[in-house]
């Protein structure tokens, strides 16, 4: 998650030039022969400039690949949402992908070459593949009996389509890709809508939208400042994947096994509670094997502690960044609380894990929970500075702890009620509640009521 942020901060024309150069050279020469020298030469920059944006060749490949996958996701979803019926939606996605590959051969070849970077590159691709599979699997909603088709159907169809497209691209026969669309559509529609509906697809042919063509012509990737796909833009069938704060599905963001296991634990806990969660639940949600689990953690408790630490670390970073973003102390408090609520609302499962389940998970995390609570105390304590004596006299040594505790309990109650997503509504109340001891109720209410 963090490297996405770092990358966005670093987004610049210089960086884009490097990525464009990388893609061209990788397409021409392959992964092994792509060197930083060649990239910097083509981009017209020096090595220091390269080092400002990337740690090395591998990092450059993987960052460019990650962006390409994100961009592909955004475009697929917009194609999917541009139509009404499921087969039309799926066809729009297929045409979009094919148009893009045909019109941008360098990127198409890059997508092949980057796989030489190893497992990480393959894992990113497979996340996109899972999203494509979920778009195919939406066909299930069109059936009288949604369980009538085996669950691996969509995954198999997506993977098979990938193999056929991949082979064409590797051979430099991208011009033949449009012929694949009706064939693949036909095979994809059949299991869900029946053989006749599948055969009807054969007559449809390749139907690229003019709109897509224009978008392809622009070619350049999404700028950092542009809004991302919002969670509500997702088709309902994707909505069950909990969107992260990027608005991208979990599959897409979570890219290594450890992170997957942590996310899997959070989901399993959201479903079964901590006590009811088994390792089988975790591995199923994380889609990894039991063996993989034990390669990373020796027990459920250990996985929980790792998850808790990861979440708290992120939460603390957010709060700290929010707090430092404002001019004066009251607004810092407001910004810190806002950052906390935003994070928890975007990640309801993680919110539940660190605010609710931590208290029932027993001795393994109770100490950590207390330490986490304590870590928020200094933000409030700094509000004592410069207050008049009569105010300070009202404050007790434990005021701050009480404030954090009260805030946490309000937040937990919402999460237990299943309203984590609406946590941000709490902002005015929490700001008023925490500022009142220092500023008096009138001034506190005023800041609480300010628009962001």
């Amino acid at each position, binding site marked *: 998650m963090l490297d996405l942020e770092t990358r966005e901060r670093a987004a610049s024309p210089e960086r884009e030039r490097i990525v464009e150069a990388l893609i061209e050279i990788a397409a021409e020469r392959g992964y092994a022969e792509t060197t930083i020298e060649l990239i910097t030469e083509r981009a017209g920059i020096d090595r220091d400039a390269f080092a400002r944006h990337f740690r090395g060749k591998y990092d450059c490949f993987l960052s460019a690949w990650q962006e390409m996958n994100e961009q592909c996701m955004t475009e697929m979803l917009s194609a999917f949402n541009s139509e009404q019926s499921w087969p039309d939606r799926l066809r729009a996605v297929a045409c979009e992908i094919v148009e893009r590959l045909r019109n941008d051969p360098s990127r198409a070849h890059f997508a092949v070459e980057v796989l030489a970077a190893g497992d990480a590159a393959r894992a990113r691709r*497979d996340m996109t593949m899972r999203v494509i599979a979920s778009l195919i699997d939406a066909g299930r909603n069109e059936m009288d009996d949604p369980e009538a088709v085996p669950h*691996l159907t969509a995954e*198999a169809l997506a993977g*098979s389509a990938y193999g056929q497209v991949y082979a064409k691209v590797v051979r430099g026969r991208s011009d033949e890709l449009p012929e694949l669309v009706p064939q693949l559509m036909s095979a994809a529609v059949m299991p869900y809508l029946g*053989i006749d509906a599948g055969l009807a697809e*054969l007559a449809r042919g390749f139907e690229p939208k003019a709109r897509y063509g224009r978008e392809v012509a622009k070619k350049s990737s999404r700028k950092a400042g542009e809004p991302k796909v919002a969670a509500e833009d997702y088709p309902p069938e994707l909505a069950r994947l909990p969107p992260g704060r990027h608005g991208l599905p979990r599959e897409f963001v979570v890219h290594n096994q450890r992170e997957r296991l942590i996310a899997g634990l959070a989901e399993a806990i959201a479903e079964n509670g901590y006590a009811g969660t088994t390792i089988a639940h975790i591995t199923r949600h994380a889609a990894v094997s039991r063996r993989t689990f034990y390669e990373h953690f020796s027990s459920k408790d250990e996985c929980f502690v790792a998850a808790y630490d990861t979440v708290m670390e992120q939460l603390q970073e957010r709060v700290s960044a929010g707090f430092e973003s404002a001019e004066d102390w009251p607004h810092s408090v407001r910004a810190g609380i806002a950052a906390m609520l935003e994070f928890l609302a975007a990640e309801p499962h993680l919110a539940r894990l660190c605010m609710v389940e931590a208290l029932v998970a027993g001795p393994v995390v109770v100490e950590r929970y207390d330490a986490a609570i304590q870590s928020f105390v200094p933000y409030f304590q700094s509000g004592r500075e410069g207050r008049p004596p009569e105010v300070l006299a009202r404050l007790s040594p434990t005021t701050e702890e009480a404030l954090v505790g009260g805030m946490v309990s309000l937040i937990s109650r919402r999460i237990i009620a299943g309203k984590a997503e609406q946590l941000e509504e709490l902002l005015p109340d929490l700001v008023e509640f925490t500022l009142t001891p220092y500023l008096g109720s009138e001034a506190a209410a005023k800041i609480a009521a300010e628009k962001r």
Partner: protein
Amino acid sequence: MPPGRHALPREFIAQHQRARIIAALAEETVDKGYRAVTVADIVRRAGIARNTFYENFSSKEDCFLAASEFAVKEALRRVVDAASKVDSWPARVNAGLAAFLHYVASEPALARTCIVEALSAGPAAVDRYERSIQAFVPLFRMGRKVSAKGEELPGTLEETIVGGIFWILYQRIIMGQAEQIEELLSELVEFALTPYLGAESAKRIAAEESATPTAG
């Protein structure tokens, strides 16, 4: 001594060496991924001299392609063998797939090398991947004869089915679930039969077939 007397053992040894080298390549690939494996790694794992490697293969790629050819041949032999023991087409699909999954589950290293690396090991591997798929196409194409719409079905349907099965196996292998691959049988049979027979019949027949013990 008549030269013929040594011919057989020498050939036998050579075959044995090739198999050992192929197995070593597969094991090394599982450990570090195909791209990272060197001839030195293979030689060390197989416990042979470097010269012996080059007597058998011209390069690592050559060895990879031979491994893949070997695996496909062996898998196909088992599939044909199993399918020929039963009569109806759905029963053949079921028996053939059962034999295939059993082979993949029993040779996880080789399966990983041939299935997982096929889509990331470069152009020669793509040829091999497509040929592997083609090898299994006829088994499914027979379904057109029993399908009411056999002649209208999309021309690449069988490739799509076989490619889909490969992809599913590939995903399970990289997730470390090679041992559970045989549990996928009835779902994969259903997946393969559906375009020919429709979802309902496919489901029913797949369930019936999985209840019938198959030979092998």
